[in-house]
């Protein structure tokens, strides 16, 4: 019966309740949108980096991650191939030989990471082939090279033009190869584009006189959730002079950024909750003041302080619950389609590309986002009603009855 009274009290001043519910709804929508957008952005940054280059797991010779020099590459790949043999049904594997070097045209030159790949294997691991905007992906010819549109502009070259790549060999001499541009790519990350070129692995081996060497084996589990367990198994199978790294170890800053965000969002929740609490205090205080006489009568007929507090808190909870439910429904109605179609932010493409996000953001509405909103907002409304409720029960019955 108390809950029925609380609900009817809310309906007594429809305009005031509507405004309060509206403000709660706006808070919930802002909270869910911000969370979904930020989670989507963070995940995209991570999956983009994993998809562009890192992969989920990499196997190196020990020390290569700290000093990615050619001398630290894997010489004997047999133990790695043996370790991977039993997992071949669950993972995609690619091997690369990479080095830092120079790419030059007749007009200009640029320092880049020269990545030697097996194109068919790499296609199953990374996404660069999807970002070809002109020409083709590596066709299998030994002198093929794909570069980014940014690098092409800098070198003033186009499809079919020749470029020369050169890099230091282990002994200190310099190797070089003449390549022909077969494709231009443009990914979500302008920094990545400017610093990466792809050629067949055999061409890099020849240039560096590094036959048989492999800088890294990239291993992508078919189910990314298996990353840690597969990495653990590989570590146990490989000799101690190999290192098995997951993306968490290869992209620590990004992972830390995501973990940091998970904490920072609670600050945002707190700001919304505090604003809401003050709104509730104000509104419920008005409602309590208006009903001073009624509380006096309630006290006269024997209503306990506990029940009066409960009634006021119930009213606040209902306001919060209605605002949260409607707010969540609207936020989900906006976010769910956007999570499929994406939110095109082409107007900010330069800044988004510079941080490796891409121009289309796909918001992610997780269960935690919905749960946080569903708990935090009604809780904040109840907390906001505590002070008005305390004011109500501090009233002296006889004075409250006299209030008009």
């Amino acid at each position, binding site marked *: *019966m*108390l809950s*029925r*009274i609380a609900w*009817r*009290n809310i*309906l*007594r001043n429809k305009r005031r309740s509507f405004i309060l519910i509206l403000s709660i709804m706006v808070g919930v929508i802002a909270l869910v949108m911000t969370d979904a957008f930020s989670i989507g952005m963070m995940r995209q940054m991570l999956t983009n980096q994993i998809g562009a280059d890192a992969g989920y797991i990499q196997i190196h010779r020990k020390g290569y991650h700290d000093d990615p020099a050619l001398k630290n590459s894997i010489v004997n790949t047999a133990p790695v191939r043996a370790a991977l043999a039993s997992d071949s049904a669950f993972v995609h594997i690619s091997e690369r030989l990479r080095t830092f070097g120079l790419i030059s045209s007749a007009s200009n030159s640029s320092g880049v990471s020269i990545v030697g790949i097996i194109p068919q294997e790499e296609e199953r691991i990374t996404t660069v082939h999807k970002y070809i905007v002109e020409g083709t992906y590596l066709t299998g010819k030994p002198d093929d090279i794909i570069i980014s549109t940014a690098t092409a502009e800098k070198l003033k070259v186009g499809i079919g033009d020749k470029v020369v790549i050169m890099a230091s060999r282990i002994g200190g001499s310099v190797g070089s190869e003449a390549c022909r541009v077969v494709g231009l790519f443009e990914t979500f990350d302008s920094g990545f584009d400017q610093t990466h070129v792809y050629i067949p692995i055999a061409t890099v081996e020849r240039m560096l006189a590094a036959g048989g060497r492999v800088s890294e084996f990239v291993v992508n589990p078919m189910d990314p959730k298996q990353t840690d367990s597969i990495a653990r198994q590989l570590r146990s199978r490989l000799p101690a002079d190999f290192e098995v790294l997951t993306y968490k170890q290869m992209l620590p800053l990004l992972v830390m950024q995501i973990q940091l965000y998970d904490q920072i969002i609670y600050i945002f929740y707190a700001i919304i909750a505090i604003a809401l609490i003050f709104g509730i205090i104000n509104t419920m205080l008005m409602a309590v003041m208006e009903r001073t*006489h*009624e509380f006096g*009568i*309630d*006290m*006269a*007929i*024997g*209503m*306990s*302080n506990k*029940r009066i507090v409960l009634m006021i808190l119930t009213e606040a909870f209902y306001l919060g619950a209605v605002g949260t439910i409607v707010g969540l429904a609207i936020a989900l109605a906006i976010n769910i389609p956007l999570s499929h179609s994406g939110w095109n932010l082409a107007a900010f493409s330069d800044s988004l590309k510079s941080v490796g996000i891409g121009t289309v953001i796909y918001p992610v509405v997780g269960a935690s986002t919905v749960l946080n909103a569903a708990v935090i907002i009604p809780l904040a409304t109840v907390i906001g009603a505590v002070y008005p409720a305390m004011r109500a029960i501090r009233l*002296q*019955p*006889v004075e409250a*009855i006299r209030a008009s």
Partner: protein
Amino acid sequence: MNTNASEIVRVDNVRKVYSDNGVPVDALRGINMTVLPGDFSVIAGPSGSGKTTLLNIVGTLDKPTEGAVYLDGEDVASKTRRQLADIRLRKIGFVFQAYNLNPVLSALENVEFTMMLRGIDAAERKRKSLALLEELGIGELARKRPNEMSGGQQQRVAIARAISNDPRLVLADEPTANLDSDTAVKLLELMEKLNHEDGITFVFSSHDPQVIGRAHRLLILKDGQIVDDKVNV
């Protein structure tokens, strides 16, 4: 202080001093009175004589500055706020001048409300509330809200609410002041019937001659003092 076991209320030498902008005002000056089971008493007197203050003190809504109030032999001064609320819930029914029904509840729910506070289960309180409303002649108004009822009808609901918990005592503060004389007479007849047939004890504060004319006991209050106490008027 010894109290007679049969007394519902005993008021001993009660003084009440209000502060009016810092100036002390004696609202009650040494009141002594008792209420016995089955009483139909009226505290009469001009405006400002202290009738409502006395009723509020008897009803534990206000505390005396001096003196003591005993309800069923218990000194209410020692009771906590929570205990006083419980005493009001179980032992006292209130009827106010302005009816003071809960505007968001129907007539039935207003009557049920006090029973709900006592923890009576929903089916029992509904049955009893409907029976009370029928007894008071407003059974057909059970679903109506206060703003859909006349003053007399609202006051009948208020009486039903006041007696719903079978109180030891009903305190009625100027219950007819807002009613036309016909309605007031009907209402008083109703309360007399409840007094005669059901043995409900009533204490009124009023200066309405119609109320005073029905009193079994009349206490005249003037300037915070009882100046006359007539039994079997």
